[in-house]
């Protein structure tokens, strides 16, 4: 196998659950984790005679996504029925959009590892309802159906086949993930299935214009799995072709345990969904005033915010990208900078350093940080005003993380305030020098290294609280006198 001879082509279909409080076509709640079938009303159950009524909020959310991806938000889009039988699909059809989606023809730029950026086309994004869940455990040879999720609003975002590696696919997926969270249209929770994707993967000999036969990898719900699934699938396809075989168009499932994809159904077995416009719903008509109102309500988007961070806080492109990758992190950073009274670079170092490390260690989200942005800002202020050294600040931060109170409280309680009174420091230096005749001799004999010994002794005597700069200066003065 020679990957140099083959080019990978990837397109993603991302299903993102919209963060509405009620369902797309009914008033039932969308809360995750409720008892089975307690959040399914007559409409969600598909009872005879019920009718769908479109939740206006989902239209607003889809329009936000469209504007944020430089897409056309269609003045007229149409809901269609996708017909197939499945036990957790109550009506025997899914209401989706087919020929006329609400969003089409846009793009997102992703950053590649080599620092360049690449434009990924967005073919379309359409609204649809989610199905319920089949529960195969605990029913002794039978299947339980939970329709709580039935009717949950989804935005399916279909990309152009513009990605050429698993890494690019992950970068794109992360970009979309950050965007929907920035826009506040999805919680992006991948464990709960709020953000998942299907990957269309094919390979072709480098230089060939037409695409190879693709397979569709279904329902992948983590960035890591997307990368693994695509890499496995690419190797599998290359092996098939190099072994003289042909890739068949089919749907495959990724098994994260075995790290492989398995055939689910071939194109011939695929359903004929018999799409047709849903006669129960009117076309969705959107006018310019609506679009302008949505545009006016858009938050600052990741790319714009990154540019502003570089400019306003004098951050490197790398730092700005890390800090703006998630809206919550960027919000935290800006609040901390404000509380610290400026100090963009120092704050960035702390947020990306000690704070991120602590969050990772305790497996917490930024929203769950025990140290608030305000509290961190106050701590950073104590560094910049010389109250404590950067080294001691780490100790204070740990105490704050463990609930010991504000930076000032910790500093007071633990007596960590830096000693910057030169007469006090001088006294300690005199005391140290008085019992170090031998070392003084060595130093004056030209052994400069011994200077560190004196510093260490002074810091030891002050439990690290002496202002290191002052210690250095005063020591030098004393030793170089005489």
């Amino acid at each position, binding site marked *: 196998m020679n990957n140099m001879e083959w080019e990978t082509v990837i397109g993603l279909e991302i299903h993102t659950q919209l963060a509405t409080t009620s369902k797309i076509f009914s008033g039932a709640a969308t809360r995750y984790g409720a008892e089975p079938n307690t959040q399914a009303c007559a409409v969600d159950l598909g009872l005879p005679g019920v009718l769908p*009524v479109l939740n206006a909020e989902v239209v607003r959310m889809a329009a936000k996504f469209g504007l944020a991806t430089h897409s056309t938000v269609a003045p007229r889009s149409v809901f269609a029925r996708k017909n197939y039988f499945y036990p957790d699909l109550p009506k025997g059809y899914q209401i989706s959009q087919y020929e006329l989606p609400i969003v089409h023809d846009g793009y997102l730029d992703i950053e590649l590892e080599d620092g360049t950026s690449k434009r990924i086309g967005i073919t379309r994004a359409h609204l649809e309802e989610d199905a319920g869940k089949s529960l195969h455990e605990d029913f002794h040879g039978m299947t339980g159906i939970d329709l709580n999720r039935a009717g949950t609003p989804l935005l399916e975002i279909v990309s152009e086949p513009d990605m050429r590696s698993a890494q690019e696919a992950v970068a794109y997926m992360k970009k979309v993930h950050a965007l929907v969270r920035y826009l506040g249209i999805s919680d992006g929770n991948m464990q709960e299935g709020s953000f998942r994707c299907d990957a269309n993967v094919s390979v072709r000999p480098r230089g060939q214009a037409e695409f190879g036969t693709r397979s569709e990898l279904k329902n992948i719900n983590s960035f890591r799995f997307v990368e693994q699934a695509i890499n496995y699938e690419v190797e599998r396809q290359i092996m098939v072709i190099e072994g003289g075989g042909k890739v068949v168009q089919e749907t495959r499932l990724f098994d994260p345990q075995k790290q492989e994809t398995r055939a689910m159904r071939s194109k011939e077995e695929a359903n004929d969904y018999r799409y047709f416009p849903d*006669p129960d719903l009117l076309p969705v008509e959107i006018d310019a005033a609506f679009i302008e109102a949505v545009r006016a309500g858009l938050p600052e988007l990741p790319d714009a915010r990154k540019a502003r961070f570089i400019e306003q806080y004098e951050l490197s492109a790398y730092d700005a990208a890390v800090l703006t990758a998630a809206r919550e992190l960027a919000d935290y950073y800006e609040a901390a900078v404000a509380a610290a009274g400026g100090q963009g670079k120092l704050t960035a170092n702390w947020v990306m350093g000690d704070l991120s490390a602590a969050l990772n260690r305790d497996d917490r989200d930024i929203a769950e940080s025990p140290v608030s942005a305000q509290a961190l800002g106050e701590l950073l202020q104590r560094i910049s005003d010389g109250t404590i050294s950067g080294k001691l600040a780490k100790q204070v931060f740990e105490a704050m993380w463990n609930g010991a109170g504000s930076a000032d409280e910790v500093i007071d309680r633990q007596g960590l305030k830096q000693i910057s009174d030169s007469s006090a420091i001088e006294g300690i230096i005199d005391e140290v020098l008085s019992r170090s005749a031998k070392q003084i001799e060595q130093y004056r004999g030209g052994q400069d290294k011994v200077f560190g010994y004196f510093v260490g002794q002074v810091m030891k005597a002050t439990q690290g609280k002496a202002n290191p700069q002052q210690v250095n200066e005063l020591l030098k003065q004393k030793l170089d006198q005489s």
Partner: protein
Amino acid sequence: MYRRGLTELAVGLRAGDFSSVELTRACLDRVGRHDAALNCFITVTEAQALEAAHAADARLRAGDAGPLTGIPFAHKDIFCTKGVKTSCGSRMLDNFPAPYDATVTRRLQDAGAVMIGKTNMDEFAMGSSNETSYYGPVKNPWDLARVPGGSSGGSAAAVAARLVPAATGTDTGGSIRQPAALCGITGLKPTYGRVSRYGMIAFASSLDQGGTFTRSAGDAALLLAAMAGFDERDSTSVDRPVDDYPARLDAPLTGLRIGLPQEYFGAGLDTGVGAAIEAALAEYAKLGATLVDISLPNTRLAVPAYYVVAPAECSSNLSRFDGVRFGYRVEDPRDLTDLYTRSRGEGFGAEVKRRILIGTYALSAGYYDAYYLKAQQVRRLIRDDFLRAFEQVDVIMGPTTPSPAFRLGEKADDPVSMYLSDIYTIAANLAGLPALSIPAGFVDGLPVGLHVVGGYFTEAQLLNTGHRYQQVTDWHALIPAGYE
């Protein structure tokens, strides 16, 4: 008491001439006496009816009564009624007590009307003779050997036989107007979107519309006033004020321009029916109307287009009947496919299956453009025909059906001939227009219906047109022998 129409009964109830309980008992007695022969009812809700009648009497005494308070009526068994079996004429829903009320059900309840039962119908409203019902055919009270029409045959026959003064129905291709014509009563299909479809079990969603069966246009005005109006639960219902139908009934017809499409008076029309319609038109001329010859050139495309659109939508609408959550479910299914195929195979009757198959085919990949899309284009042509005609005329008239009631079994094995019995009514559904059928004479002792189609939301004008005719004729007042 049972001889009186809804309007008269409303006056009597308010005057205290009789109570709603007395009236309701009288209707229940009529049902008890005649329904074994007619088979109009799938369910009679005697206890609930008497309870509702008591409540209505209390409202009447308290002076808190509207025109329908205390009036007994029947619902076509397609409207969901909470806690009451809602079968849609199918084995599939024989075990289905609806867990909620349709909007129409609730509106009539709020108006104080007293439901005495649910009427028989063609299975899932698919049929023109009431012979496809799981509960057996309904008989036409004018001749028990003949069909009452369909699909709302039970409602039509019940009103014609004076079992109830009024009943609800639904009309997808003529399912109110055709049985009204064959049973000699007044049937109104409102504009698509005028009456909420929420809780009305769907056959073909873009064509279905709830409406009324009454003895007169005046009665229909009272019933429709309670049923009509915007419903936020139905996205296709139209948010526009409901006209005061009763207030418009008496307007003179002087200057009314009646369009007579040449396509409705040609080959295939029974000569007796044709003569009755001519006589009715002459009556309208006497009332001051002008008769105008017009053309609806795409008329011949209506039936073929309908038999693509309606089955296509039904094939999708009926997918929810899968044996999983409600309705008929086979014992001990071997696997999922077995559960689906046997539940549906045994739960649905032959006509329903025929239409599901036709519709599935019409929507299939490779056929969609040729059938469904083409049929939708034809719909626009048909609507445009009407819109052009209404630039010239106020209403369009013709026969409701090509012939009077046919014999039970006569067309049961000939679906195409059956489908053609809706040839004059289907176009109004395809265009979404309101249409009325009123009694206009007899052929060999069987009623003939006059069909009146109006522009969008002209129900008030249609009812006015019907009412003025009924002031000078008594076809609508005739009662079939044995039911006087």
